[in-house]
């Protein structure tokens, strides 16, 4: 595993920020560290990045101790802080060039600026950028390392829709290219869009971790929305399954979702000249899974 957190505890005086947390983040995948503000996500990331010492427990990143092997690690690690990190009077082009040069990994600054959609703002100072543009510059600084492992803290926070698309695409590209991406967020929707693996934090503790498919339950039901008052008996007979009518045009078929089942439902609706307003493949949303898991802990 590229990142291995084992029984990590971080204390600030009497406050326990992280309480015996353990999880792993595999290479070439996006691991989302999920939880509300103050759950211990940033403290955990800071230990992984080598900014903070563990009170107890161990962390290895690319097989290295982030504190003792700092020099080796910083040359192959990209870090995006939750905010700031750039002098307000610094220009985008200058700061990206500076970080590319400091890392010395052959990343070309102008190409990076273009890739993040910042070419039109390259001459602007940091203080004149919008929140979303600042986030994109911060991501560019992390990418300047051509990282083997990237720690991104709330990368889409305050970013508009286009910027989010850009950031999601880059995160996916990083993972596809073999980079281990560890991303902290409290936004469930973002997590669901980007995660291969999930680590759920609450009050400093890891409540669940693993591939997203192992966290989110399958409901073994196919839901869909169409016109109200549909003949569910006829549809049930057509499909050979029970179809429940939940009112307001919402229906559920008691059968595991599959492409074939969707095709048969849509064909039947088409033959009846009925509309299809939406389809639910029966996956539990990450937010529902989080509520279920954290609710169970309370």
């Amino acid at each position, binding site marked *: 595993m590229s990142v291995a957190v084992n029984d990590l505890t971080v204390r600030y005086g009497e406050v326990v920020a992280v309480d015996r947390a353990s999880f792993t983040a595999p290479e070439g995948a996006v691991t989302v560290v999920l939880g509300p503000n103050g759950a211990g996500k940033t403290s955990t990331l800071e230990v992984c*990045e*080598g*900014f903070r010492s563990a009170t107890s427990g161990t962390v290895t990143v690319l097989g290295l101790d982030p504190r003792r092997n700092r*020099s080796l690690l*910083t*040359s192959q*690690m*990209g*870090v995006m*802080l939750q*905010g*700031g*990190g*750039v*002098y*307000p*009077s*610094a220009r985008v082009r*200058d700061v990206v060039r*500076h*970080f590319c*040069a*400091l*890392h*010395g990994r052959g990343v070309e600054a102008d190409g990076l600026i273009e890739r993040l959609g910042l070419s039109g703002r390259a001459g602007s100072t940091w203080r004149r950028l919008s929140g979303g543009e600042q986030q994109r510059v911060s991501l560019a*600084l992390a990418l300047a*390392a051509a990282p083997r492992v990237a720690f991104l803290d709330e990368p889409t926070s305050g970013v508009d829709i286009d910027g989010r698309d850009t950031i999601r695409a880059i995160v996916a590209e990083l993972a596809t290219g073999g980079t281990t991406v560890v991303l902290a967020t409290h936004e469930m929707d973002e997590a669901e869009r980007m995660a291969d693996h999930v680590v759920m934090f609450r009050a400093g503790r890891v409540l669940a971790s693993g591939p997203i498919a192992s966290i989110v339950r399958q409901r073994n039901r196919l839901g869909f929305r169409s016109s109200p008052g549909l003949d569910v008996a006829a549809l049930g007979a057509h499909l050979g399954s029970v179809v429940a009518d939940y009112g307001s045009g919402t229906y559920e078929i008691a059968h595991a979702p599959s492409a074939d089942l969707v095709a048969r439902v849509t064909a039947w609706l088409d033959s009846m000249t009925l509309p299809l307003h939406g389809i639910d493949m029966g996956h539990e949303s990450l937010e529902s899974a989080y509520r279920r898991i954290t609710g169970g802990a309370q």
Partner: protein
Amino acid sequence: MSLRRVILQFGSEWNVIMRNGEQLLLTLVIPMVLLGFFGAVEVLPLGDGDPLGVLVPGVLAVAVVSAAMVSLGIATGFERSYLVLKRLGATPLHRGELVVAKALAVSAVEVVQATLLLGLALLLGWRGAGTDIVLAVPAVLLGTLAFAGLGLLLAGRLRAEVNLAAQNGLYIVLVLAGGMIVPPDELPGVLGSTVEWLPTHALAACLSQALSNGPGGSHWWIIAAWATTLPVVAARRFRWW
């Protein structure tokens, strides 16, 4: 220690200084105004000799305090506040390389200061009488170490805004009563005898020996002591973010 990274970071530090109007005001304009005004208008109790003989080393000491303490301290305080230091901490740039780059940037500012101030002094009629002018180099070096230590001690502990106020407040007090412009024996009672032990007066006295054949003597030990102690305390107490 990578010379390449030190040079890169020095370039970045220099750009920040050049873009920061307040720092330029502090490091260049204020010492120039002090020298120009007090060199032309005899309002300071500078004794019977050539007033520029006292004023030039004193203003050079003020310039060192401006660059090494106030300018560096304020900039570093805001870098902490803006998480610039933290962000740099995630790059291959080592802390030692960052410190050397900052020291080089301060030294470069001091070279510009010295060039401008000595040029202005010559225009005002100053003719350096110092026979040990080369002593100005270790004097400035020791002064830079001492005041950079003091500036970083404040910057490494205080919030950026409090640090800004503290550095500026301390600067005004030191300029007025630090024994650089006004000699300690012209200051009242216990203040005058206290000032003798301050790094500000010690630096001015050492520069006076180098540039005007003034009495250096024990002041070298005093500035050396400050130059040894303050950076060590600053390094131990400094919080990077």
